[in-house]
């Protein structure tokens, strides 16, 4: 839908640990996409997210959500966060310590609806914890409550600030699935800050790479990354990020420890005991590796 496209053209001077960096982003996001903002810390991903949420005002520019202007420096328009109908999930989850799990979710609802709260509690497996306060929850449980809470608001745009950075690898996989499920279920346009390539490949339909405040690449994750990372070492360990069927063969995407992406052809019986998230080794025998001079 044309009127659901988010148009962003903003500039903001950021004060980072490496000195001042100018964030200059011009991009648009299609409705229903799960977009990953990828880049090193200090590149401006979180700032861009906070600008979209209305918590930080850009120095200059325009943000349009469908037909609604959220920010226009020339017309001096800056819609407050309360009126943007967004859901922002914070890195520290920002659960309200004075409220129980159930009250946290209830608080986010525009109108009180007990049935909807129960539905969210069930969806995220939180029924047992409904009376608990956030301080008694584990990281993974907090993350689920935070996700349920932002969804309770029924946002038009979901903003996730490194939602999984505080969790260990195993928990991360479980919750990546949950984010994907929530996104598929509700079809809400989602923007997720991440510096984990694996996460980007598993979840995102579109990726925007930000370096030093500028958008360097964007597109589908495989297009945005594959062209400039040469794959083909003799022995590489990594993690399976994606398995795609192509005719009778399968293409397995493996991401190595230093974030290289390798595509490997596999037969059905090769995949018998392999699944997404498994740690694997990609190797090639004898004369397959080809050498070429760099630069």
């Amino acid at each position, binding site marked *: 839908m044309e009127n659901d496209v988010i148009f962003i053209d903003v500039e903001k001077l950021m004060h980072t640990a490496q000195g001042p960096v100018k964030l200059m982003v011009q991009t648009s996001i299609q409705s229903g996409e799960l977009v990953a903002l990828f880049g090193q810390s200090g590149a401006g991903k979180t700032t861009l997210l906070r600008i979209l*949420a209305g918590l930080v005002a850009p120095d200059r520019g325009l943000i349009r959500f469908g037909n609604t202007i959220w920010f226009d420096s020339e017309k001096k328009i800056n819609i407050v966060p309360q009126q943007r109908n*967004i859901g922002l999930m*914070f890195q520290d989850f*920002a659960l*309200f310590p004075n409220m129980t799990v159930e009250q946290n979710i209830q*608080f986010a609802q525009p109108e009180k609806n007990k049935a909807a709260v129960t539905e969210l509690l069930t969806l995220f497996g939180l029924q047992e914890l409904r009376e608990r306060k956030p*301080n008694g929850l584990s990281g993974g449980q907090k993350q689920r409550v935070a996700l349920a809470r*932002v969804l309770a608001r029924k946002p038009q745009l979901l903003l996730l600030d490194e939602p999984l950075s505080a969790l260990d690898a195993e928990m991360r996989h479980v919750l990546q699935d949950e984010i994907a499920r929530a996104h598929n279920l509700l079809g809400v346009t989602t923007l997720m800050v991440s510096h984990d390539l694996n996460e980007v490949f598993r979840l995102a339909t579109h990726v925007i790479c930000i370096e030093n405040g500028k958008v360097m690449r964007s597109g589908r994750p495989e297009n945005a990354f594959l062209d400039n990372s040469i794959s083909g070492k003799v022995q590489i360990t990594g993690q399976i990020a994606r398995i795609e069927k192509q005719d009778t063969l399968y293409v397995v995407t493996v991401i190595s420890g230093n974030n290289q992406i390798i595509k490997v052809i596999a037969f059905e019986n090769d995949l018998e005991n392999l699944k997404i998230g498994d740690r694997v080794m990609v190797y090639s025998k004898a004369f397959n590796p080809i050498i070429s001079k760099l630069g």
Partner: protein
Amino acid sequence: MDPQFAQTLCLTLKLAVSTTVILVLIGLPFAYWLAFTKIRIKPLIEALVSMPMVLPPSVIGYYMLLIYSPRNWFGEWLGRIFDVQLAFSFEGVLIASVIFSLPFMVQPLHNGLRSLPDSLREASYTLGKSKMLTFFRVLLPNIKPSVITALALTFAHSIGEFGIVLMVGGNMPGETRVASIAIYDEVQALNFEAANQYALILFLVSLVLLTTIYSVNKKYDTWKMM
């Protein structure tokens, strides 16, 4: 009980309760504003609020008397329009007491609000909640120990206030003679038994209040660690 003794205690209580109630009404919005304002002169405002903690009460009392004086435009204006004479009256003492106890209310609240992560406020705003609702439903309930500390310190401090009451209010039974003044007065009159009674009551009330503060904070610490 000696009626004068009862009257003095009543007046002391009245002053402390009124001061605390007024300071809740002023202190809450003021501490909120101070905690999140980006105004340039914030350090100056913070210094002014804290002045009563470092200045001798006689300095503030002296300025209050000057302001209240009918020879001054403010005192003259009050007398002319409202027929009010603040010097050596309960109201005058109350205003002085509010100013003098202001840091005891504002500082704990200010520190409490500043200690909360910004993300709590921001999360509430992005969930569509107004600043007012966020303050009462999210911020205030999460600084409960600060609120209790502020209330108890303000109350205890107002009960024990001596210098400024003496300067602004003098020692008028039923009007400005509070317990701390009465102790001084009774000692001057070598009436140690009465002084002892007042002193013991002030001692016990302060002890109970401070013990409450510390036990609440201890409970909160264990709760936080869970």
